[in-house]
C-alpha cells in the first residue's frame, strides 16, 4: 500500500547554501571582488545554527558534508521515500538580512541562480521560492521581474522579520510585483533582527526565539491586513512557513472583534479580517503546534473555518518528525487530501501549469 504522502506537494524544503563563496560563479567582477576581498562567506541565520538539533534531523546529517546541502540528499531523504510529486525549495540564506541593499540584491540574485543550476536543473520535481533584497522594495521588485520568467520559481521569500512590518507601504512594490506574476509571498522563520524578537526585549534561548516567532508571524499577518495589502492586491496569497496553526482561531476571533470596534481607523479594511485571512493566508504543516489529542486537530480546523489553509511540508532538513511520519495524526480524510495537494495547486498557480 502506498504511503499517504504519495503524490503530495512539499511546500517547505530548505536547501542549504554552503556560503557566499559558492556563489562566486554567479557574480559579476565587482561583487566577486567584494566577496573575496572582504572575506564574506557564511551568512547563516542565527535562528538556525548548523549544529542545533532542530536545524537538521540526526539521520539526515551526512557523515561528511553539509546537511541539506545537495539535491541528492533531498531525493534520498524525502522526495523518494515519501513519494512526493513536487517540492518547493525555500532557502534560508541570510543575504536579505544584510544592511547593504546592493550587496543583498547581488547575493539574492546569485543565490537564485545557484538554486536554478544546482537544484532545479537537476531534479524535475523541484520548484523554488526566490530570495529578494527585502530592505529595498525597488531592488526586490527588480529581482521578481527578472526571475518571474523562469516558471519554476513559484513564490517570493521574505524574512519573517525585516526592516519594517511588511504591511507598511514602503514594501508595497514587492506585493505589486508578486501579484503581477501570480507569485505568493512566503514568510520564513528568519529575522533581520532590526528589532528585539519580542517587545519585552531579547530572550535568552534559541527555543524562545522559535516559540516566539509564531507571534511575529501573527504581527505580520495583521500588518498586511490592517494596512490594506489584500484590499489593494486581491489575488495575492501569503504563505507562512513554520508558523504552526494553534494560534489561528484566537487570532481570528480577536482580529474580528477589534475590527468591529476600531474599523474607523482602517476604513480600507472593508470586510471581516477573518475572511481576509481565510482567503489569503496559507500555512505549512510542519511544525503544526496542536494538542496531543488527535480529535482536537479537526476541531481546530473547524474553528479556523477553512480546509484550504494547510499546505503539506516536511520542513526538510529541520527536525520536525521521525522516520516517514510526516503527516499529523487526526487530520480527517478530506482535509488531508486538500493539504497534501489541492491546496498547494490552488495557492501556486504556477505548479498547476507544470504539473499538467
Amino acid at each position, binding site marked *: 500500500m502506498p504511503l499517504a504522502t504519495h503524490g503530495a506537494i512539499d511546500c517547505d524544503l530548505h536547501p542549504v547554501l554552503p556560503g557566499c563563496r559558492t556563489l562566486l560563479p554567479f557574480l559579476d567582477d565587482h561583487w566577486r571582488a567584494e566577496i573575496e576581498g572582504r572575506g564574506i562567506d557564511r551568512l547563516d541565520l542565527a535562528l538556525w545554527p548548523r549544529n542545533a538539533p532542530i536545524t537538521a534531523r540526526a539521520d539526515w546529517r551526512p557523515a561528511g558534508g553539509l546537511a541539506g546541502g545537495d539535491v541528492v540528499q533531498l531525493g534520498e531523504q524525502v522526495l523518494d521515500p515519501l513519494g512526493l510529486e513536487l517540492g518547493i525549495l525555500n532557502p534560508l540564506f541570510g543575504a536579505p538580512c544584510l544592511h547593504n541593499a546592493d550587496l543583498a540584491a547581488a547575493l539574492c540574485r546569485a543565490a537564485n541562480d545557484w538554486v536554478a543550476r544546482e537544484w532545479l536543473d537537476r531534479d524535475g520535481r523541484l520548484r523554488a521560492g526566490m530570495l529578494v533584497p527585502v530592505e529595498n522594495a525597488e531592488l526586490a521588485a527588480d529581482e521578481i521581474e527578472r526571475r518571474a520568467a523562469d516558471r519554476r520559481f513559484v513564490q517570493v521569500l521574505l524574512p519573517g522579520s525585516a526592516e519594517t*512590518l511588511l504591511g507598511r507601504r514602503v514594501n508595497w512594490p514587492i506585493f505589486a510585483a508578486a501579484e503581477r506574476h501570480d507569485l505568493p509571498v512566503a514568510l520564513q522563520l528568519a529575522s533581520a533582527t532590526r528589532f*528585539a524578537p519580542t*517587545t519585552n526585549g531579547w*530572550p535568552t*534561548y534559541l527555543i524562545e526565539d522559535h516559540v516566539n516567532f509564531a507571534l511575529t508571524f501573527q504581527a505580520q499577518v495583521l500588518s498586511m491586513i490592517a494596512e490594506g495589502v489584500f484590499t489593494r492586491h486581491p489575488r495575492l496569497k501569503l504563505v507562512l512557513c513554520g508558523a504552526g496553526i494553534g494560534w489561528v482561531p484566537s487570532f481570528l476571533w480577536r482580529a474580528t472583534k477589534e475590527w468591529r470596534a*476600531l474599523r474607523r*481607523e482602517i476604513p480600507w479594511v472593508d470586510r471581516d479580517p477573518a475572511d481576509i485571512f481565510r482567503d489569503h493566508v496559507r500555512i505549512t504543516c510542519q511544525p503544526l503546534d496542536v494538542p496531543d489529542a488527535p480529535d482536537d486537530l479537526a476541531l481546530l480546523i473547524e474553528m479556523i473555518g477553512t480546509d484550504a489553509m494547510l499546505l503539506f511540508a516536511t520542513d526538510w532538513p529541520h527536525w520536525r518528525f521521525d522516520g516517514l511520519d510526516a503527516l499529523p495524526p487526526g487530520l480527517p480524510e478530506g482535509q488531508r487530501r486538500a493539504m497534501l495537494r489541492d491546496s498547494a495547486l490552488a495557492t501556486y498557480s504556477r505548479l498547476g501549469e507544470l504539473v499538467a
Partner: protein
Amino acid sequence: MTTSVSPAAALRAEGPAHDQLGIVDCDIHPAMRGMEELDRFLSPRWRKHRQEYGIRLRQPFAGGDPYPKSQPALARRDAWPPGGGPPGSDLDFMRAQHLDFHGIALGMLQPLSVRGMDERVPGFAEALSAAVNEWQREAWTSGDPRLKATICVPGEDAPAAVREMERWAGQPDFVQVALVTRALEPLGRSRYWPIFEAAEHLGLPLGLHSLGTSGHAITGGGWPSFYYEEHQAVALSLSALIASFIFEGVLERFPRLKIVIIEGGFGWVPALGWRMDSHARALASEVPHLRRRPSEYLRHSFWYTTQPVDEPEEPGHMRRTIDWIGWDRLLFASDYPHWDSDDPRHVFKCRMSAAERRAIFAGNARAVYGLPG
C-alpha cells in the same frame, strides 16, 4: 453533571443589575485627577523633580500616546464622573456605576497612569512606586473594603522592589505585586529573581498587567501603524513573557510562585503550550534545567484574567478553549472603566454550569489571592 445555565437564564436569575455570585473583579483601574495627587507622598526632592521633569518613558511623547486610543482617556463614554475628573477617579461614582451595580464583592486595583517601574530615573521610580501605593491606600482601599491594592514596585532595581514589597506585605488590603510586562529585559531574566524569591516567600502572587514602554518595537516584526494592531499586540507580548518565565527556569526555582496575567484575554494560551511543547523535543538540550514539559509549568503557575474576552462565533469553541486552559485558571475582570471593558452579565456567551460560573467569577480569584469568601 451540574445543571447548565444559559446566559439569558443567568441574567433572569440575577436580576438586571446584581450578580449573586459575589463577583471578584480582577482588573479595575483607579485614576488620578492629576499627578499632583501624588505630591503629598513624595519627598521635596522628588516632588520638585515631578513638577519640573515629570515621568520620562521610552517613547516619543512627554504626554500623549504614539498609538492614540479609540476613546478619550481610553474610557467608556459613560464613565466620566458627573462631578468632574477623569473616568475611574471618583470612588462614589465607581461604586454606583460599577461595584454596587454589578454586585462586585472584591475589586483588584491596577493603577496604570503612573508607572514607577517604567520611569527612567531610578530614584524617581522608587519614589513614585511608594507614592502610588500610599495613594491606593488613602484614596481607595481605606474608602471601600471591597477594593484591594496592588503593590507597585521599581522592578528594575530588585533590592528596592523587595523593600517596597516587604513594606506592604503584611497589609491585608495589598494582595499582589505589580511589575510592568514590557520591562528592560524579559521578566524571566535573573535580574528580577530577587523579586520572585520575595514574592514566593511573602505569599504574594505577581499580578502582571500588560504595561510598559520597554523601548523595543511592539512586535517582533517592528512597529505597527495602527492602534488596531497595537491593541492586539498585547497578547503577543504576554505570550512571550510567559515563555521567558518558563524557559529561564523561574518556576523550577520558585515552584510556589503564582503569576496572574492581566488584560490579555486568554484565547492564545493553549497555542503557547502546544508550540512550546512541540519545540521542546528538538531543543531540549538547550534548556536542561527544565525537568517538565513547558506546558506543565503553564498549567501549574499561571492564571489569566478574562478581559478582553475572546468572542468565537460558536459558543462550543469557547468552552473547548477553556477546557484546554483549565476552568480553574480564569479570573473574571472587567477592566472598568476602559472602553473595551467586559460586562459580567454578558461576557460569556456559552453555557456554563453554576460551578463553572462560580469558579471564573469568584472562586478562582479567591483561591489565587488567598481571600476566603
